[in-house]
């Protein structure tokens, strides 16, 4: 086939857009993160971060909040997705939509709703900051975990389950050896969509009076103080965490794909 101009040119505008507005910003914050005030290359920013017990504490606390939220979301979402995907519904699409719909309502309004209920229940929100944070984060991100899990579980061929049952395997084992591994792409997808945003969404903590900083709060704080360098250092660390999570996710899903096919 003749090499056409249209084909080659078509990708250019978007590629250009992405280069300027996605790649360049990353390069700029890399610049700010790895230079000192005199413009020379310096690892002082990162060194300063990793020797500071408070910064490390923030990182650990953020990871804690993220991990617990992700785990809770998984525990609630998996059975939900399974029932939705494999259950017997006349209007499956409509029922599924009901679980996805909160995604489309602005999260600040949803958090406000939860906050009011919690205030009524607890009286003073400041006494249980960690619990409240997990609750609100779970409330915010649960739909984002349900959807990819649903998509993955829906794709599981019923034949696998039937075959296992025919072989006389218990339900628990069916779950552990067949359903769970086959749903891994969905788990991976869901975790990627929940883990990092939770670490950085400091607005939720602000709204429910959790005064402790998470990684996102640091960026916000440095931004308000016009401290671009420190903000960039934290951003790069977040990107690093992101890369690790994405790489691990890709590795896991590739591994599992191999296993299933086998």
């Amino acid at each position: 086939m003749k090499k056409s101009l249209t084909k080659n040119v078509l990708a250019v505008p978007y590629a250009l857009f992405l280069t300027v507005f996605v790649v360049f910003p990353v390069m700029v914050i890399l610049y700010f993160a790895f230079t000192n005030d005199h413009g020379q290359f310096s690892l002082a920013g990162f060194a300063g971060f990793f020797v500071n017990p408070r910064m490390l504490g923030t990182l650990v606390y953020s990871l804690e909040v993220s991990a617990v939220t992700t785990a809770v979301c998984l525990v609630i979402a998996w059975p939900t997705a399974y029932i939705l995907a494999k259950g017997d519904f006349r209007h499956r699409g409509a029922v599924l939509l009901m679980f996805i719909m909160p995604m489309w309502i602005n999260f600040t309004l949803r958090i406000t709703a939860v906050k009011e209920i919690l205030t009524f229940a607890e009286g003073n929100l400041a006494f249980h900051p960690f619990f409240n944070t997990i609750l609100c984060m779970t409330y915010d991100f649960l739909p984002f975990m349900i959807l990819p899990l649903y998509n993955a579980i829906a794709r599981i061929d019923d034949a696998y389950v039937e075959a296992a049952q025919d072989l006389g395997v218990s339900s628990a084992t069916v779950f552990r050896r067949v359903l769970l591994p086959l749903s891994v792409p969905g788990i991976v997808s869901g975790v990627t969509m929940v883990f990092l945003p939770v670490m950085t969404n400091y607005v939720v903590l602000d709204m429910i009076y959790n005064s402790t900083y998470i990684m996102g709060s640091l960026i916000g704080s440095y931004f308000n103080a016009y401290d671009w360098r420190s903000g960039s250092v934290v951003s790069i660390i977040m990107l690093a965490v992101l890369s690790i999570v994405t790489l691990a996710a890709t590795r896991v899903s590739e591994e599992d794909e191999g296993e299933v096919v086998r």
Partner: protein
Amino acid sequence: MKRRFQWLWLGAVLLFMYAPILILGIYSFTDSAVIGALGQFSLTNYQVLFTTPEIMDMLTGTLILALIVSLMATALGTVGALGAFYGPRRGRRAVRTMNQIPVVNADVVTGFSVCILLIVFFGMDKDTYIPLAIGLTTLCAPFVYLSVLPRLRQMDPALYEAALDLGCTEGQTIRKVVLPQIAPGVFSGFMLSITLTLDDYFISTYTKPATFDTISTYVVNATRGSQTEIKTALWALSTVIFLVVVLVVFAMNRSASRGNPAADGRKGA
């Protein structure tokens, strides 16, 4: 037995997800200032919501912003997906990698980095709304790309060949054959953009002009503040948005069930 348990579980999860919004909805129709004692029926909150110029300006502004950003993002994302699908191999991988970054990245980092580039490095003025539009488009376009690309892959390649064989130019083929085929993907990408823009807090905060507010920034500031009137008016807003979303979603579901398979989600593919 199993079926009952299934419904019970689903019901519990639904209750968790909707109870706060519904309770807020009920209280929005009363004159109570806090959740607790149920006051008397009153439409004051809705009155305040629709008559306060500050709130209405904020809502119209946010909607117009969402529309403009989504148009730009849909245009870019669609063209990008077309280019990636039909273009050279190497280009496709580059675009795909770059595309993934805003999708998996934290909003805070995206907002911060775009702000640093445009406002600190290029010295743009936030008041022109350009940083805001660019920031949000950067967030949304990759999701449009991800909505459209699977459709392109699902398309029967024979159609494309057939059109060319019948004498269409490539441009005509793309316009008249391909685009209609991927239209559902484009549309869901567009709706996704709208949702993302309306929901966004961080990119808006870092790139918006000082006097402009989106729903998220307005709500966060209002819940920090002391005016009870505004606080309860926002309960009304939450209820209104909830009802609108219900209507839109079910309208989309009905039209979707008439033609194409179930609606795409955020990360369908």
